[in-house]
């Protein structure tokens, strides 16, 4: 028994002596909630950290509207060395576990996207559910947005993007989703494109092809939803349509709220030629309509036809833009549906997707809804 107690004692002493390496008080941490990455002219990486400021000194906090952010910038050859330089400027330890937003500039995207992702992935403290977004120009101008809320700026921006997530999965921008697309054999990653000058900061999407193509797609609902239609699975998007009233012969305006839409691609290989069919399917209801129209069967038919034509036009434009920007969204979907055909095509002509025939099957369905108003849209 004595021997066991002795051993236990020795173990306890060793524990106390050799551990505590990870002990750090919460007030000694500089909690980073957002980061932005820029590339300087001499190919260094400039990292700006949005550090949450703790309201120090003064227990009763009278100035509620004070800025909660502290921005610290550091440069280095890689993210790690830049963070090291930031650490030198701070008296607290940099703590990345709470980071929610990573803003990349377009130069980072075009020059060192893969290595950047690698570094983000390797960092033990960073979580894969942080959002990765892109800004055209300098990334750190994102921090110039005036923050009216009490939460730190990075979290405010994150919430703005999350509002978009409700509309379409394309804006679900967590890092692991992007990596899932990026690491897949023929995948294309997409990231939200932020514009600090825009109304709600979200300008569109950026597509990055691992082979080097980058496409900037602006998204401006309710006029042009083409990019979103092409990506599919939207919810509650509004579309504005101009149509010809069958009874009065006049132009009418209408706003359709598409409850849920769905896009799939069909591939058919026939006589050495690939035919792609874009199937669009959506359920919507009329949210607003210019006055004086009779909402009967004929009108709905006309409305659905017009909506279908508009949607087809938007999607077609989008595909053309995609082709001109050298971003191939179809490679992965063809690989998934027909791997054999894909291999044959890739061997024969890697630019098959620029030449293939595209046909459209659009199924807009407008629900007769008693809730639709008759006020002008």
């Amino acid at each position, binding site marked *: 028994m004595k021997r*066991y107690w002795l*051993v*236990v004692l020795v*173990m306890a002493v*060793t*524990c106390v002596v*050799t*551990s*505590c*390496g*990870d002990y750090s008080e919460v007030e000694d941490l500089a909690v980073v909630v957002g980061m932005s990455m820029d590339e300087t002219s001499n190919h260094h990486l400039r990292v700006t950290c949005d550090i949450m400021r703790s309201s120090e000194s003064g227990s009763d906090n009278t100035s509620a509207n004070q800025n909660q952010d502290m921005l610290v910038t550091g440069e280095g050859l890689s993210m790690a060395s830049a963070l090291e330089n930031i650490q030198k400027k701070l008296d607290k330890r940099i703590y990345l576990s709470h980071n929610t937003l990573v803003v990349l500039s377009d130069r980072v995207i075009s020059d060192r996207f893969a290595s950047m992702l690698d570094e983000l*992935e390797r960092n*033990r403290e960073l*979580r*894969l*559910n942080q959002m990765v977004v892109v800004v055209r120009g300098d990334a750190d101008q994102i921090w110039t947005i005036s923050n009216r809320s009490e939460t730190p700026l990075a979290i405010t921006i994150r919430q703005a993007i999350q509002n978009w997530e409700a509309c379409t999965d394309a804006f679900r921008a*967590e890092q*692991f*989703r992007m*990596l*899932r*697309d990026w*690491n*897949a*054999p023929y995948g294309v990653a997409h990231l939200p494109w932020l514009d600090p000058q825009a109304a709600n900061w979200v300008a569109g999407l950026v597509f990055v092809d691992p082979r080097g193509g980058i496409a900037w797609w602006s998204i401006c609902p309710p006029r042009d939803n083409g990019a979103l239609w092409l990506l599919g699975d939207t919810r509650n998007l509004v579309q504005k349509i101009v149509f010809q009233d069958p009874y009065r012969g006049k132009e009418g305006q209408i706003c359709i709220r598409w409850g849920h839409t769905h896009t799939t691609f069909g591939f058919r290989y026939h006589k050495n030629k690939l035919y792609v069919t874009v199937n669009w399917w959506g359920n919507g209801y009329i949210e607003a309509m210019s006055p004086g129209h009779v909402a009967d069967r004929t009108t709905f038919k006309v409305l659905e036809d017009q909506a279908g034509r508009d949607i087809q036009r938007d999607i077609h434009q989008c595909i053309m833009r995609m082709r001109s920007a050298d971003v191939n969204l179809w490679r992965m979907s063809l*690989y*998934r*549906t*027909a*791997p054999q055909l894909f291999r044959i095509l890739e061997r024969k002509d890697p630019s098959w997707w620029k030449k293939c025939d595209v046909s459209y099957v659009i199924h807009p369905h407008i629900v007769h809804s008693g809730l639709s108003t008759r006020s002008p849209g």
Partner: protein
Amino acid sequence: MRKEQISRYQLILLLIWLTMGTGVLVIPSVITEFTVTDAWMAVPSLFVGGLLSAGIARVHVKKFPNLRVTGALLATAGSAIGNVLIIWYVSVVFVVGTVVAREFTLFVTMVSLPYTSETAVAVIGCASVAYIAYVGIESFARANEFIVPLAAVVLPLLILLPLTLCDVHQFYPVFSSGWLPVWKASIVSMFVYGLEFSLAIQLVPNLRSPEKLPNDIVIAASISTVLILIVVLLTVGVFGYTVRYLQYPVLELIRVVRIGRFIERLDTIYGIAVLMTIISKLAVIHLAMCTGIQDLCKTRDYRWAVLPTGTAMFVGGLYFYRNVAQMAYFIEHVGPSYLLFTVVGVPLLGLTLQRVRFHLKRRARKGG
């Protein structure tokens, strides 16, 4: 000394923890090394391995309903060669234990305490495992039962939450490159984790109904196969090919869950659950080793061996596998044939020796 006995339910729980402990960490990354989209097809191999173990267990309990592996080796191969075989068996269990101990320190270090020395982590692990082994299998099995209701609450949560992030497209195309990668991917789970079930044979004297051991192994194998299958499906569905770049895919799976503003950062719950299962696994391995040594030294109790061998196991883990790569190499490239030889080959050797001795004796009797 009172005989310690465990019920069938307790045994099944122990066996499930035995595979899940490190299997849930290692199997997904081993399988996805070879194939990602078809990873789920490689998981049932664990069940096949379990069947293999169950078959061996069946033979064992038919012939020796009251003996453990080491006892049976002694009975079949005679005292001299039997002792050699026992030494081999104990050394294999020891090496398996070092791997698991190394995984324990590695897991804690990577997940929670990166700046704490691995020695300190090993010391607390060793202390807890030694305590469990010292207390004995019966109390430990009861403690497992006590944890089950808790696990029943947490486990569905851990499974359901990542389900919302899952993407079915990640499983297409099916059979992207044929059967060969699937076969290669299933070897480790079949011959390393499936054969680990045979450690239960070492517990035969402690079973209330040893004749049901093969059935219990099959039940435990099927449950753990289903659990691992769920895990593999989830990891691949959430991460796709990124799985290959992650050290612990399952952990990252829980780390990315974020629902609403507050349901996130659940990875520590998961980490603690894994920690508990690894400790359970280590405790079973340690008990098997200690009882083997007990048979070797022919003492009435095994408890004297708990502390020295436990310490040796943890230090051995640190000493044998300096880094993750060495350990992964050992598990993937040495493990399958090593365990296959030990679990199937050594008992066969024992049986052959028994036959030979039997014939020799008969001939001697006839001749004399």
